[in-house]
C-alpha cells in the first residue's frame, strides 16, 4: 500500500463535523449537538469532533428547510468548506421541506442548492440514524478520495 493510500485510509477515520442551521426549529440541532454526544451514543468514538470553523470541516450537517433569508448564507458557508467534503441533510426539512414545503419563504429543499450525499429523515431523526449517517458519509468520503468504500 502506498503512502498516499495509507493517508487517505487514515483520513476518513477522523471526520470533523460542522453544523449549519438553515432555519431549523432547533429540534435536529439538539439531537446533533447534545444527544449524539452523550455517553449512550458518543459520536466521538468514530473520531468525530465538532469544529467551530467551516475551514476545518469534512462532513457538513445541514438542518432546517433553508429559508429564503438563509439561502445566501448557507451557500457562502458551504463554499468555504475545503474539498473533499460530504453533505448530510439532517431531518425531513432539508430533504423535502417537511411541513413547510408549500411556504412562500422557503428556498429549499437543500438538494436544489448543493449536492446532498446522505439524507437522514425524521422529525427529529433518532441519534442512531444520525450516527449511521456519519458512518455512511465516511464511506462516501472514501469514494470521493478515489478509493473503494
Amino acid at each position, binding site marked *: 500500500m502506498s503512502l498516499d493510500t*495509507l*493517508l*487517505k485510509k*487514515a*483520513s*476518513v*477515520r*477522523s471526520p*470533523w463535523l460542522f453544523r449549519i442551521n438553515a432555519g431549523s426549529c432547533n429540534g435536529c440541532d439538539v439531537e446533533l449537538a447534545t444527544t449524539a*454526544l*452523550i*455517553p449512550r451514543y*458518543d459520536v*466521538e*468514538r*468514530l*473520531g468525530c*469532533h*465538532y*469544529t*467551530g*470553523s467551516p*475551514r*476545518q470541516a*469534512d462532513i457538513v450537517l445541514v438542518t432546517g428547510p433553508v429559508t429564503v433569508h438563509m439561502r445566501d448564507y448557507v451557500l457562502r458557508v458551504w463554499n*468555504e468548506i*475545503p*474539498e*473533499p467534503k460530504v453533505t448530510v441533510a439532517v431531518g425531513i426539512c432539508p430533504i423535502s421541506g417537511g411541513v413547510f414545503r408549500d411556504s412562500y419563504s422557503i428556498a429549499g429543499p437543500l438538494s436544489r442548492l448543493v449536492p446532498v450525499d446522505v439524507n437522514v429523515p425524521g422529525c427529529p431523526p433518532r441519534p442512531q440514524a444520525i450516527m449511521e449517517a456519519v458512518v455512511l458519509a465516511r464511506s462516501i468520503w472514501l469514494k470521493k*478520495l478515489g478509493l473503494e468504500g
Partner: protein
Amino acid sequence: MSDILWALFHVCVFPGGLFALGFALFLKGLDRRIVARFQRRVGPPLIQPLLDIAKLLTKETLIPRTACKSMFMMAPVIGMTGMAACAAFIPVPGVFDGMYMMGDLLVLFYLLPVPAIAIMLGGSASSSPFGAIGFSREMLIMLSYELPLLMILLTVAMITGKATGIGTADFSLLNIVQYQIHHGQFGLNPLMIPAFIAYLMFLPGTMGVPPFDIAEAETEILEGPMLEYGGPLLALFQIGTAFKTFVVLSLGVIMFFPGCLGDFWLVNLFWFMAKCLILMFFSISLLRAVTGRLRIDQAMMFYFKIPAVLAFISLVLVMIV
C-alpha cells in the same frame, strides 16, 4: 563534525523530533480517552491525534483573500520549529544529559512563548475579526502566566545555585537534575511545594485547555486565531502543540521530580514517561473534564493572585533559608 551529527540526532530523533512527537501524540490520545471515561463515554481510539494530522494533510489549503499571505503561511512553521528546537534541550534523567550544559533553562524560557506568538501572528494575519479577538486574548493570558513561570524557574535555579556553591542562580538543567538525584527531589522539599503547585496551575494556561481555553473558545469566538486555518497549515499547528505538550510536561518533571529507578536507561526512560503522564492526568485531563471556561479577566486575576503569589513565596523562602 560528529558534534553536529549528534546535535541533529537530538533535534530529529531523541529527545526532540520523532520521540517527542510520538510520545506527545500518544499523551494527547490518552488525554482524550481519559476525559471520555470521566464523562462515561467510550472515547476516540488512542491513535486519533495521528489520524487527525493524516487527515489534515490530505485536505486542500484555503487562504482568505484579505489575509496577509506570507505571514499566514509562516506562523505555523514558526510555532512548530520553535518548539521542535526546544524539545531537543530537554534532558531525560538517567538517559540523556541535554544538549548544552550552560544556561539551557534560560533558553527554554525564551523559546516557550514561541507557539503563543505564532498563534497571535496567525490570528492577526488571517484578517478575521475573530482572529483579532483571539489575538488579544492569547496575549493577555500569555502575559499573565509568564510572570509565575519566570519566578518558578528562578526559584529552581536559585536553590540549585545556592546548594551547589555557585552562590547565584544556576540555569543549567543538567546541574538541576544531578543535584536532585543526589540530594532529594524539589517536589518533596517544603520550600518548593508552593512553586510546584504554581507550576501545576501554569500548565493548563499554557496548553490552552479548559478553564483557560479562552483564546480558542470554539463555542464563543469559533476557534479564534485558528478560524481561518485548515488543512496542512492546521496540521503544522497541531504538531507544534504536541511538541509543546512534551516540553512543558517534561520541564515540570525535571524541575520537580527527576528521580531515577536504578541504572538501566530503558527503565529510566519509561519512568520518566510515566511521570509525564501522571503530571498530565492531574493538571490537564482532570481539570479539562470537570471545569467550564473562565472569562479573560477572571483568568488574568487568577494568575496574578494565586500562582504568582505561590511562586513568590517559594522564591522568598529559598532566598532567605
